[in-house]
């Protein structure tokens, strides 16, 4: 059931209706049943295979969470009971034992779920790479494994929960069904955001009365999400497909066009999908974390990653980067490297290693392909390079007083946009060498060639399509600029007047229905982030 399918729209409408009709204490059970039904239906053969994987993850994390919580409770009670009788060392030894036990439970849970994720998602990739070193006769057969929809998203949500419980920053959920709902909540299972339990649980399980402002806020966001996905992304995908498939015709300057088109397509696809997700939740009074904050307004790559796919970035930072950076081995390595390489370089060695591992993991998380791995590492290289060059930038900025100039800020934004768009090209072409070749051709032959006009016309879009894309992108840009200047979404203004809310809702419905690229003649694509 694609987000862009009629079935999904109808399904969502019925769920929201049921949510407000049933007695309040049944609201979250309605969501649970709907989410499990949605996930069951997502299996191409409508078998409970996807559901089986999801339930293993959910139940294992729930049990482990409870065991960790119980270990905490017992230790607290024990220490309280033996407050006077235990020496300081005995207390420390006891606490260490409990800590080890909690770590063991957490590690078992992580291994089980990362194991499922790895086997289902990466077996084929690993065997394919092994086979490339083997003779054809010795090639290992690639098993036909299913990849449960959204497994990367729900696994990461669950692992985040279990780590938080172990850290004591999150209380274990006692109700198994509530926890299954947290893992399986249907709008966000497909492409995130990767929510933290503490952030979602309060509004996910609490009762909500119908509030027209909250409801229409969600509906407007859903419609704007469909606008981005269907009016822009689904049109651009036609041209991007042509540009990425016929690489002989579309090299040189066309790679630049592909870069810009793909940047716009991915932005509208991913943010559109997230708008639909957050909008559905919002229409029911449930608050999910924001996943984007005007990423194309970033002035450098670091800022970009704080604004793009925010929940993924923070997940990797909180659960991989920081633990890795302060792990005893890293601290030891940091000490050694400072001694051997000097304070300046030495202190950066461990940061680089942690950062390298985080970006490697980010690339692998995105997909079982070298393109994603190289994409992750390219991000690492650029972040490290900009980090190293920062003192030089500072000097340069100070000397020319650039930091205060608006024009320079615009330059920084465009520079970051182009840089990130170029790195994103690893997502566009079929393999890594080809991507490098195509990026190279963009610099070597920047023109469109002698038959550029005909080749551009053969991209599959009409002048009217470009007109629609141009107008839609201009609107999205204007709304983003409004948000950047005013610091709030324009929805806030619209929602202050009920007649205006209704008018905008009506206009958006009609605009999406008329100008959306869907139905026969268009093949509404899966959201790009669904595959992760």
């Amino acid at each position, binding site marked *: 059931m694609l987000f862009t399918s*009629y079935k999904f729209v109808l399904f969502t409408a019925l769920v929201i209706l049921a949510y407000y009709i049933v007695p309040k204490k049944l609201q979250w059970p309605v969501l649970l049943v709907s989410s499990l039904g949605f996930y069951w239906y997502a299996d191409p053969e409508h078998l409970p295979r996807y559901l089986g994987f999801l339930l293993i993850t959910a139940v294992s994390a729930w049990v482990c969470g409870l065991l960790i919580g119980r270990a905490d409770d017992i230790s607290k009670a024990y220490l309280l009971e033996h407050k006077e009788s235990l020496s300081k060392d005995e207390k420390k030894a006891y606490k260490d034992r409990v800590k080890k036990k909690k770590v063991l439970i957490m590690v078992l849970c992580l291994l089980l779920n990362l194991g499922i994720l790895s086997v289902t998602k990466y077996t084929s990739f690993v065997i394919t790479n092994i086979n490339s070193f083997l003779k054809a006769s010795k090639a290992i057969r690639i098993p036909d494994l299913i990849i449960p929809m959204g497994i990367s998203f729900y696994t990461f949500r669950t692992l985040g929960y279990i780590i938080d419980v172990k850290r004591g920053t999150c209380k274990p959920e006692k109700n198994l069904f509530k926890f299954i709902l947290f893992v399986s909540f249907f709008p966000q299972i497909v492409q995130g955001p990767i929510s933290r339990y503490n952030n979602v649980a309060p509004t996910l399980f609490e009762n909500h009365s119908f509030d*027209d402002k909250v409801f229409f806020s969600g509906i407007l966001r859903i419609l704007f999400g469909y606008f981005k996905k269907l009016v822009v992304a689904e049109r651009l995908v036609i041209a991007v497909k042509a540009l990425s498939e016929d690489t002989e015709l579309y090299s040189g300057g066309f790679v630049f066009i592909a870069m810009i088109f793909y940047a716009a397509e991915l932005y509208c696809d991913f943010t559109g999908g997230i708008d639909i997700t957050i909008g559905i939740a919002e229409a029911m009074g449930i608050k999910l974390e924001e996943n984007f904050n005007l990423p194309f307004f970033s002035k450098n790559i670091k800022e970009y990653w704080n604004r793009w796919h925010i929940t993924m970035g923070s997940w990797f930072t909180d659960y991989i980067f920081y633990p890795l950076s302060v792990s005893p081995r890293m601290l030891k390595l940091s000490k050694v490297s400072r001694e051997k390489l000097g304070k300046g370089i030495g202190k950066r060695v461990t940061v680089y290693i942690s950062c390298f591992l985080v970006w490697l993991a980010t690339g692998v998380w995105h997909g079982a392909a070298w393109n994603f791995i190289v994409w992750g590492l390219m991000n690492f290289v650029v972040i490290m390079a900009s980090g190293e060059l920062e003192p030089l930038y500072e000097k340069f900025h100070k000397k020319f007083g650039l930091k205060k100039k608006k024009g320079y800020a615009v330059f920084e934004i465009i520079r970051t946009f182009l840089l990130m768009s170029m790195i994103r090209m690893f997502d566009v072409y079929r393999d890594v060498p080809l991507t490098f070749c195509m990026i190279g051709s963009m610099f070597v032959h920047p023109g469109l060639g002698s038959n550029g006009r005909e080749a551009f016309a053969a991209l599959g879009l*009409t002048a*009217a399509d470009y007109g629609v894309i141009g107008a839609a992108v201009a609107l999205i840009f204007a709304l983003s600029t409004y948000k950047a200047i005013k610091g709030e979404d324009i929805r806030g203004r619209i929602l202050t007047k*009920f*007649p205006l809310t*209704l*008018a905008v*809702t*009506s206009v958006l*419905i*009609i605009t999406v*229905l*008329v*100008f*959306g*690229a*869907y*139905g*026969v*003649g*268009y093949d509404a694509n899966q959201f790009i982030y669904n595959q992760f």
Partner: protein
Amino acid sequence: MKKGKKIILFAAAFIVTLILLWLLTLLFMPKYRRGIVEGAMIAEYYEDRKPHEVIFIGDCEVYENISTVELYREYGISSYIRGSAQQLIWQSYYLLEDTLRYETPKVVFFNVLSLKYNEPQNEAYNRMTLDGMRWSSSKWNAVQASMTPDEDMVDYLFPLLRYHSRWNELTSDDIRYMFGGGENVTIDGYYMRCDVKPQAGFPKAPVLADYRLGENAMNYLSMMADLCEEHGVTLILMKAPTEYPYWYDEWDRQVREFAQERGLEYFNYVDLRDEAGIDMSTDTYDSGLHLNVFGAEKLADYIGAYLSAGFDLTDYRNDPAVSSMWEEDCEAYDLLMQRQLSEIEEYGELVSFGANAI
């Protein structure tokens, strides 16, 4: 704002949005007034107020090959052709079911060429046949039976979802005929062509791996026979007198056997062309694929003679109420023929038809 006022505003906005969507649907639906006009044929039946004792059902081999006006003029038979381009047998079946909701004819002719298709074929042809059908369980079932894998029932229920992308190809016709109106494309289901292009040779019939007619198609033929039986209608199977697309002897034999089994008449008019006086050097407008009006009148005469002799049909020429309506159709028929013949005389071809029609 008070709750009551909000509810009223919401209801008003909801209704206004629905009205706008309805208007947009009317605007975007293809009007089939020029070029490809076949999509307009099915809907025209509902405007006709005359009773029909003979109904022809099938594809272009019926709507281009039999002159309904000639049947009336010569024999007083009131007939209608429920045909459309590449009308598949399940569409014909449900169109017959649909027709039986409005009237019960005495005789139904079904042209068997579509038996060669056993599965849904083409979305564009589906739409041309099904969009014009009025909503009923018959239409629902016809859509279900006809949809190709890319199609969705919702697109039929809400045609705006199918035709929304026409926003950049709208013409003045789309506004002019938004609420209907304009001349009919057919006269009682007959689509007239007055030009002449003699039959030329056809490419050799390809050899098929399997000559058996599809189970699904034959099942619908059987259902059609049952339906006619239930309603006391005589079903007659026919194969139009044109040779291309090919109608293999093996297929012909299977239809003959079926007719025999079910006690039905089956006429292959290809074999009866001489008897009907059809001359493919003058009676076709497209090198033998379809008959022109001269051929269609000859075939109508031949069928009319058979019907008059074998069935107790009303001579509607003696029924003032019906004949007055038929006279209007005869007038329109003559006018259209005159217009086409004048065009042919003036330009040497029929410029108001075809893809480049002005």
